């Protein structure tokens, strides 16, 4: 068996490329990324539900929403266990449907108000910034974020 540490960095699987080669340190890094992805450890006291809708294929500006789901939403879920988070990935077989499909993040507040963030052609970091501004989220204190020491 070829270990990840024996491979040249360029030959490693894409999703592992920035993570450490050793199994244990990689696992720690992964857990730390769940608890504290960059600029995502926020609390959403005013929000009751987040609903992300995007296409299952990345083309036409849907990559940002996918990355937001993959990285930022995990951390949001970790710090807000009471917020209902839903993700809908729409399957669009034809090009017309693909162009028509929206990429939005719906925010439902505790008092029932609804707001939308358009995620098309936006980077996941920008979606996160917009969400924080829109909902007046509170940044988590350092002692609230668990860190596994290397």
């Amino acid at each position, binding site marked *: 068996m070829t270990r990840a540490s024996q491979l040249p960095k360029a030959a490693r699987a894409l999703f592992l490329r920035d993570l450490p080669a050793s199994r*244990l340190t990689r*696992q*720690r890094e*992964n*857990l730390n990324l*769940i*608890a504290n992805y960059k600029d995502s450890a926020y609390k959403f006291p005013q929000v009751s539900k987040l609903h*992300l809708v995007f296409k299952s294929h990345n083309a036409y500006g849907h990559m940002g929403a996918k990355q937001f*789901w993959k990285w930022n*939403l*995990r*951390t*949001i*879920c*970790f710090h807000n*266990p009471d917020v209902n*988070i*839903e*993700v809908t990935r729409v399957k669009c077989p034809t090009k017309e449907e693909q162009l028509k499909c929206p990429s939005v993040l719906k925010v439902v507040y505790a008092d029932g108000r609804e707001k939308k963030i358009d995620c098309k052609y936006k980077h996941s970091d920008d979606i996160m910034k917009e969400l924080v501004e829109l909902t007046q989220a509170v940044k988590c204190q350092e002692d609230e974020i*668990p860190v*596994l020491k290397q």
Partner: protein
Amino acid sequence: MLKSTARGSGLFRLFATSRVLAAPKVKKTPEQLRALQKRAEKREAVAARNARRPAVENPLYMPVPTALRYLRAAEVGRPTNEAVITLQVRVVSRKGDAPLQGSIKFARPLTDTQILVFASDEAMQQTALAAGARMAGGKELVDKIAAGEIDLSAFDRAIATPDMVAALRPVARNLGPKGLMPAPKRGTVVEDVTKYIEDNISLQPFRQRNDHIALKIGRCDFSDEDLLKNVIAVSEAVKAAVAAAQSKSPTILGQTVLSTTHGPGIVIDF
């Protein structure tokens, strides 16, 4: 290279004209065999020593509620039927010992146990289906299984009435590997089918495979309390199976890992 390949056969073997697999196997000397056995013993000893260490010493150890917080975050936005929580227990035992097996009564089961019933009496088939059996039938069901028309992986248990046992022999090779062959020794040949179903419908069978016991214990939308109760139920059932195991050397339970479909594996107390 040429020396080593020509050694066994005494002939000169060309790579261009003969296959590598056709070369005679190099026999191991007694010293090499002894060294291999020694290495295997050492590996077993290391596994046993690691298994005896408490879970808290593991760098990836977490209490169950904390672990669930991480796992739920890793499964965010997945459909509920996809986000399944699993438990994996390492079993350290001697090679050749009978595998651990038993059944668990979950506080909140994922699904009811899928029971397959063989009964020649039509009325009994109907009562079995009414009691919660997934499928019931007589000789015609056996024929269907022999023809491969039924997906046996959907079932967890199979029971039969005593008069059907002889008729099941032709499909023993289909049922046996799945652990579905009814046998009096396992208590799956019964007169009162309905009573058996009522007693066992919420029981989940488990079996050791490749030094591990691995099973689903719930979904991410279950509450912490339900999941903890399920973990405790697994722990009790597995420890009972270890106590009941009849082997010369002791069986030890090693590290227990809680994980989900897309999530990391986290070591927990067991």
